[in-house]
């Protein structure tokens, strides 16, 4: 029987053989299988070195530009994440969440709903929070991006928000936690002394299926006393 690996957005997908019987609409999408699995490992290797020299075939998209100033975007972009600049090959239809997780290996950013409805993928771009699942990577080429990996100190010292979330038992399953941390840090960067209403509003774009909202909110208020 054909086995299907985990969904890997860094490989090209082609229509595959008939999917395994599945119920519901899932069956429709599982008929896509990776073109060549080995590219994944290739990409993993270069991700570690931080620099990707794209194969010439990937460097430019297919069109010949009519005018110099109306060219389609190139695939090789420089991306500044957590203070480090990476050169990375990015498809035009790739989201920032995909690039962070599967090209740069920064898997702290989670993909929950993949459609702007949960906040698990929240990152900071130029000081404001955005959903990385709903942002094309090409859009943030010139932005300073901070993910949850860039919140703690270099030596591993936790940010007051992270410490307070632990003390207030914010995380239950923990899946929403990276997004909660990022939203809280962005708030305190902008407004170190929020009222509880301001904090609630700033955290309102982060869903928690475990319902630990009050714990996270208490964590934000506690962290605000310490920053």
């Amino acid at each position, binding site marked *: 029987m054909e086995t299907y690996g985990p969904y890997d*957005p860094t490989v090209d*997908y082609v229509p595959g053989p008939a999917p395994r019987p599945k119920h519901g*609409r*899932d069956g429709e*999408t599982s008929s*896509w299988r990776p073109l060549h699995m080995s590219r994944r490992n290739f990409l993993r290797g270069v991700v570690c070195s931080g620099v990707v020299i794209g194969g010439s075939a990937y460097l430019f*998209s*297919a*069109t010949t530009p*009519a*005018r110099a*100033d*109306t*060219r*389609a*975007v190139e695939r090789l972009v420089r991306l500044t994440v957590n203070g480090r600049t990476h050169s990375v090959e990015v*498809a*035009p*239809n790739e*989201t920032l969440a995909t690039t962070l997780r599967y090209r740069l290996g920064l898997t702290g950013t989670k993909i929950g*709903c*993949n*459609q*702007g*409805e949960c*906040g698990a993928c*929240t990152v900071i771009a130029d000081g*404001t*929070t*955005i*959903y990385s699942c*709903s*942002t*094309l990577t*090409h*859009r943030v080429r010139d932005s300073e991006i901070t993910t949850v990996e860039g919140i703690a100190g270099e030596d591993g010292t936790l940010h007051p928000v992270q410490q307070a979330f632990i003390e207030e038992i914010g995380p239950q399953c923990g899946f929403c936690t990276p997004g909660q941390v990022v*939203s809280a840090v962005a708030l305190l960067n902008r407004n170190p002394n929020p009222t509880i209403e301001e904090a609630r*509003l*700033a955290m*309102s*774009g982060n869903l928690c299926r475990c319902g630990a909202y009050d714990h996270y909110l208490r964590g934000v208020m506690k962290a605000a006393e310490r920053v």
Partner: protein
Amino acid sequence: MTDVMHNFELFQPATLADAQAILGDHEDAWIIAGGMDSLDWFKHRVKQPSVVVDIANIPDLHGIREEDDRGLWIGATTTLTEVNESEAVQSRFPVLAQAALRVASPQIRNKGTIGGNVSQDTRCTYYRDGFPCYRAGGNTCYANTPTAMNREHALFGVSRCVAVTPSDTAIALSALEAMFIVERRGDRSEVAAADFFIGPDIDITRMTSLEPGDILVGIRVPGKWAGSRQYFEKVADRNTWDFALANIAMAATVDAGAISDISMVCGAVQCTPRRLTDVESLVRGETPGEELETLVKRVAARGAEPLNFNHFKVPLMENLAMRAIRSLA
């Protein structure tokens, strides 16, 4: 269920002229500003344009400027957060600041633009899921059958399609009688809100008068209602993310205790923002109070034709109109 987006060519022009050249070259080019509505379509594989034009880098489309008449010019790619936090908007047009604040969630407002918000497509779930309904070019409406789930759908103005306007800022901008500045193949025109938002009787496949290739440059909010008494309220299942079940926007002037002029618009009850002209003519010259509120409740939803599951929108609408008038007392 979302999927990897289809392959497309991405353009990021730096000027309006470049954007127009690209749009002119590619027939099925799709504009994205914040992308919060567009990427959703792509991920569900319902819309698959081969060319996507990201207009966020065009300086001419961004920012908030004062106009001579105490009005404001708001660039199309100004984010909803920027609109909400602008002091000029807050002091002159609080109804717009509040509407922008009630859209979606903080992260969506940080990226979603006001131009995209007024131009977004309807949220009818059948249509969004790719059902081949009238709006999608088919020959039936899946939301208007005896068993259809049409709790979010229209009370008024039905013409085959029963979908409603999803935009919160469109309601406020309609109440403020804003003008939409549209660039079509080098020609610039100003379209009044009442003509910008179109219903299925005019074109069932579009929600606005924008045609493919048109660029919304900005929105001009005239000084007429600057500093007037204003009111915005939205009712949704959850305070975050959810679209309005009904919302109301009002601007009014009160002279010696009586309402001298008023503009009131209700959203999510029709395909376009619905101006409540019956309420407006009823209250002009009258003094706000309990008696007037009772009368307003009686006329606010007059002519509503509820579907199977949206009867609740009638009292909702009546109460919202009444509460807006109450705010003037």
